[in-house]
């Protein structure tokens, strides 16, 4: 469904992605892991058209999209829930969802989608008329996901949906993601909660400084020492003095 070949993205003169290739098949939940600044978010931004790929190709649903504007890519059936949620703080919850469904011109389709989102996240219905900026972090995340679901995307890009949330809310969000996956939405997920993310993912890519280092299923990645050390908290104990080379 989504295929990146040799994608390179720059921020000014700084190269953020060094030839990233990855593939997401229809119905899969694929997870990108990596340290802060490895370029995980950049991959999503490049795919959804916020950042521009300088080199390489991106294919979505059989169409080349690397030169398209963000809003045209959305039309093809891809929704991106950006890092830090980015709800419209001065608009109400309902208006935010209305914006999520901006491309829907049919009134009945719109109200049925709205009902779907409300039944998935009942708290949004309660807060219907409230300004999105006044919601809690968890509610904002639900709104951000709900907003993206208004268009019934074929592919959903989720960037750190659990960022800054309490443990209970984190599991709630993961339940939602699992549920979406089960209902047939293809998902590309960026997460810092590596353990939880890998458990629900079909396939994972490990990214370091803009390059894909490893890829595989949870079982395969779990066996890799580097993954264990870096992300799963099973690394070996290193004497601090040795880190300083003394």
């Amino acid at each position, binding site marked *: 469904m989504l295929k990146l070949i040799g994608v390179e993205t720059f921020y000014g003169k700084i190269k953020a992605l060094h030839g990233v290739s990855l593939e997401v098949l229809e119905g899969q939940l694929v997870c990108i892991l990596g340290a802060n600044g490895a370029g995980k978010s950049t991959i999503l931004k490049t795919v*959804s*058209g*916020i950042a521009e790929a300088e080199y390489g190709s991106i294919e979505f649903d059989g169409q080349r999209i690397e030169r398209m*504007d*963000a*809003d045209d890519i*959305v*039309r093809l059936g891809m*929704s*991106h829930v*950006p890092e830090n949620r*980015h*709800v*419209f*703080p*001065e*608009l109400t919850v309902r*208006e935010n969802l*209305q*914006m*999520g469904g*901006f*491309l829907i011109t049919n009134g009945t389709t719109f109200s049925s989608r709205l009902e779907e989102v409300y039944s998935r996240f009942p708290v949004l219905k309660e807060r219907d008329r409230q300004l999105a900026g006044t919601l809690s972090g968890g509610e904002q995340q639900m709104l951000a996901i709900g*907003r*993206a679901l208004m*268009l019934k995307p074929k592919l959903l890009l989720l960037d750190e949906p659990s960022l800054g949330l309490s443990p209970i809310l984190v599991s709630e969000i993961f339940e939602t993601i699992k549920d979406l996956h089960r209902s047939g939405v293809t998902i590309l997920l960026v997460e810092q909660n590596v353990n939880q993310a890998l458990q629900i993912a079909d396939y994972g890519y490990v990214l370091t400084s803009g390059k894909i280092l490893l890829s595989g299923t949870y079982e395969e990645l779990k066996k890799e020492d580097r993954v264990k050390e870096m992300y799963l908290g099973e690394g070996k104990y290193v004497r601090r003095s040795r880190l300083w080379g003394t």
Partner: protein
Amino acid sequence: MNELFPGLAQEIVSGVALGCIYALIALGFTLIFKATEVVNFAQGELMMVGAYVNFFFITIFLDSLGFGNWPSFILALIASIGFSVLFGVFLDFAINKPLKDEPVFSMIMATISVAIILRAVVALIAGPITLVPPSPFGNSVIRLGSVAISTLDLFIILSAVILVSIFYIIFNKTRWGLAMQATAEDPMAAGLMGIPVKKVYRNVWIFATIVATIGGVLLAPRTLLDTNMGFLGLKAFPAAVLGGFGSIPGAIVGGVILGVVETISMGTLSFHFHWIKEINDVIVWIVLILVLMIRPVGILGKEEVERV
């Protein structure tokens, strides 16, 4: 008191009318600023161009084609709005598109250059002399008891109220209006919703040009047609700042307050005290400084809360 009252009432109405024009200009650049973060220094010149174009159409319809008085004015207004749509598209193409993500300073210089170029081009085409545009109302006045109010002023106020209401409905109730607000708040997220951000920017420029043109059409019969009338746009700046820069109701409130203050000071201070004759040109700025000393964000401005 009895003698003072009719004069004061007339001045307030006339001040509100002038304020409505400030408000329309302030509304235009508040809108552009909110949506695209560009401070458009050419907003006053857009108004000037609008007034000239309207004058041009009026002379065509009235003199060359020999239409009646009212049909000419209405047709000219429609034609001018048509022109401002095209002009707005052109400005978006010429200024906004190439410079959108460039440093703010480039953008400011570009809008100032546009202002100067427009003034020069209009002077070149229309000639540097001041023109006297016809008013559909002539010098007629409406009398309410002892108070005589110029029909033109009433018409200006009425038009501004209608225009602002239309704008309010578009901005708050329609799909495209909400998309404009969403783009103003977070252009990246708006793009991710499938909102065509570039089209929204273009619409904002079109809208700001239309508002400026209507402001010019309304102002021209009150003052005279002059290539320097765009400098009035500079007074719409303090209006926007006074109301709270970036706030749309603020632009309107600020505009009306400044209009009233200016007109009343002209009728009282300048009239009675000859040694401060030019006070009405200065008082706007004095009021601005006083208000900002008490409330630095302006009357309806929101205090920025930095989130950590």
